[in-house]
């Protein structure tokens, strides 16, 4: 039996965030991608936005500024 495929955009479109936010955490309105606050930690960005932790309309993203990232985690 085939299942329906649900196509969804990324919750934050990193391509649309201005470069002035590179290296910062940003609170983004999920529906229109508006930036509601920023900071150098997730919590500071949330406080800047004055939104609640459990507000389902927001997402908090880190805006990467490095060109390439390699992270491999193996439990030892």
């Amino acid at each position, binding site marked *: 039996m085939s299942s329906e495929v649900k196509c969804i955009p990324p919750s934050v479109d990193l391509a649309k965030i201005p470069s002035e936010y590179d290296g910062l955490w940003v609170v983004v309105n999920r529906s229109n991608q508006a930036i509601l606050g920023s900071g150098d930690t997730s919590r500071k960005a949330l406080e800047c936005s004055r939104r609640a932790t459990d507000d389902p309309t927001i997402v908090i993203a880190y805006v990467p500024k490095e060109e390439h990232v390699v992270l491999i985690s193996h*439990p030892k």
Partner: protein
Amino acid sequence: MAKWKIKYTGRPGRTKRPYIEVVLRFAGKQTPGHPMVVDTGSDRCMFNEQLARDYLDINPAMYGMLDKATGLSGTDDVAVFPHLEVFLPELKRSFIVSAQFKFLLFPGVIGHEGVLNQLKVTFHHGEYFEIDDSDHP
């Protein structure tokens, strides 16, 4: 609904990556949603320790089990919480994972143990990835 197709995203002119939104839950507390990279190179899920301190009221360095994680840059100490809930809002599914916490510049990565080994994930690099949860009851 058991299949999702999610577009890659990334900074202009740079590598696009597969991100999925993640909420961490522990003892009645939770983080806001944070997009995290789906990392097939990681055995385990690894998260930014600041998220644990700021939202879950736990200090991983003080209360987690000490463990080691090995990457390309060598071996690091990590704090492990064996029963952390990883909720993926887009899938409306939760996973209980043995999560590693350490200092990271970004929110974290979703690895194999507890999450990716529960799903069928197919990558169409730079474009989109598909998650097939058809076998989940």
